[in-house]
């Protein structure tokens, strides 16, 4: 059991949200407090914009990552500590970060936009940055939904310890899947990684995984069904090459098959592509002027922390430019007043 203390997740010591009265309006409201949102916050605040970050979990998906080994400047650190570092940086600039709060609606009828939160509060903003990230994708096969929480799991670092000495399956072939397989191999008796095509993960991770004795690899293998009455007993798979079906026995199935963008909030407001990602121009502006987007939620192939942080920076600088150029300042100020 790892007893290492991970204090500071909610940063009891320096908390900008509870002690602060919510401002009535801001220059830029950032929705989502993952790497993209916090990075945008840092850039916006340093530009002198009146900034607010609203998010329902600070650090975003970085919190679900055991170790990060590809963020420049840190050869290896826990996702948790990286998330803290982002948050602490934002807090050190006195950016109000409204935590554990979800934005439920935004209204962009007027030039001054209205952001509504699930706690009943709302705030007006000249510009909005959508940094709502993404969520794990489901396999979408028979049995998955029924057995979720009964052997089907979506967070390897959370649920891994519950499978000590047992056999588990990891579904997926990207970095998250290979990392999960490596982490789980330390706990489980055997790990089978099953992916419908070839690995997408970094070679360095694949090499590491291949050195481990208790990991079986099934590539070009499709999961057809998760089996089990009340608890997972295995999966039924089909090889794409041989077309042969077989059952792989396991008590746990860890689903790491990629992510779906959290774009539902703005689905009817800005343009979205077929994959559910927000369309943006080269300056991170969406199809609606004054609404910017950054991170996993935007169009683009690679979903990484450093990319999300970079996007956030761009979006904030671009929002700053937009605010500076707002054509009719006076009209806007009237709207605000």
């Amino acid at each position: 059991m790892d007893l290492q203390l991970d204090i500071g997740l909610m940063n009891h010591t320096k908390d900008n949200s509870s002690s602060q009265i919510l401002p009535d309006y801001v220059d830029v409201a950032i929705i989502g407090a993952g790497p993209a949102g916090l990075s945008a916050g840092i850039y916006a605040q340093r530009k002198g914009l009146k900034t607010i970050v609203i998010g329902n979990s600070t650090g975003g998906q970085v919190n679900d990552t055991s170790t990060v080994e590809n963020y420049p400047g840190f050869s290896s650190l826990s996702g948790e500590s990286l998330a803290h570092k982002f948050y602490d940086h934002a807090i050190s600039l006195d950016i109000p970060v409204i935590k554990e709060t979800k934005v439920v609606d935004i209204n962009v009828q007027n030039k001054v936009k209205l952001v509504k939160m699930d706690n009943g509060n709302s705030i007006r903003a000249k510009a909005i940055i959508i940094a709502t990230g993404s969520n794990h994708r489901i396999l979408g096969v028979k049995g998955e939904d029924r057995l979720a929480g009964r052997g089907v799991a979506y967070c390897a670092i959370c649920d891994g310890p519950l499978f000590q000495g047992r056999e588990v399956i990891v579904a997926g072939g990207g970095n998250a899947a290979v990392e999960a397989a490596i982490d789980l191999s330390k706990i489980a008796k055997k790990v089978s990684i099953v992916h419908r095509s070839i690995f997408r993960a970094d070679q360095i991770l694949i090499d590491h995984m291949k050195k481990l004795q208790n990991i079986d690899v099934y590539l070009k293998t499709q999961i057809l069904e998760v089996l089990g009455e009340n608890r997972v007993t295995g999966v039924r798979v089909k090889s794409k090459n041989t077309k042969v079906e077989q059952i792989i026995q396991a008590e746990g199935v860890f689903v790491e098959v990629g992510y779906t963008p959290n774009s539902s909030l703005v689905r009817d407001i800005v343009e979205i592509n077929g994959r559910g990602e927000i369309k943006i121009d080269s300056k991170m502006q969406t199809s609606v002027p004054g609404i910017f987007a950054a991170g996993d939620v935007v169009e683009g192939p690679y979903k990484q922390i450093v990319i999300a942080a970079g996007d956030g920076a761009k979006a904030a600088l671009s929002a700053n430019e937009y605010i500076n150029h707002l054509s009719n300042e006076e009209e806007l100020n009237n709207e605000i007043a």
Partner: protein
Amino acid sequence: MKLLNEEVRAQLQQVFENMKTDVTIALFTKESECETCKETDSFLNELIETSDKLHLKHYDLDENEDIAEKFQVNVVPAIVLLNHQEEYQRIKFNGIPAGHEINSFVKGILEVSGAGVPLPEAVAERLSAITKPVNIKVFVTLGCPHCPGAVEKAHKLALMNPHVEAEMIEAQTFYDLSEKFNVSSVPKVVINDQYEFVGNQSLEVFMEEIEKTQMTVQ
């Protein structure tokens, strides 16, 4: 081995400065058959050094049967947080609240010391209608970042209603209990051993499940 490093110690000192009243941590252990009792004890010993408002009391599950019963403790290690008058506040930690869970433990201490935050009004109103006994179990693992949130919510509900009690259960330590309640994802919340859900859900979801227990004849 020291469990708290300098950095964590300094953070805890700062956090505990917000405590309004004294809090007593009652630790239940047993001489034998308890793998994590020793570490839990040394962890708490180090922790109470970070504030003079914190006090530690030791009980043996077998020898102090009456007290264990009063606080409804039946496994070890178990930690019960008592207020400044050493009264039971209906919140418990079964297993060592280390790893991520230190966050819910610290929050629990602050709450019991009078430095808590109020519940949203709508939830408080629904909670005040709860008049039959409710037990909330929250199964966690120490590596789970979403788990402390669920534990805090359960504990908060217990603190605000005398009919509700809430306990964290470290799933690895209490393997049999986890098996019994089919825990394979955490946080898993089980209410009156009957209603359950997985995940750090909203207070409304907690209330919905709690309200189900009020309708049945008990």
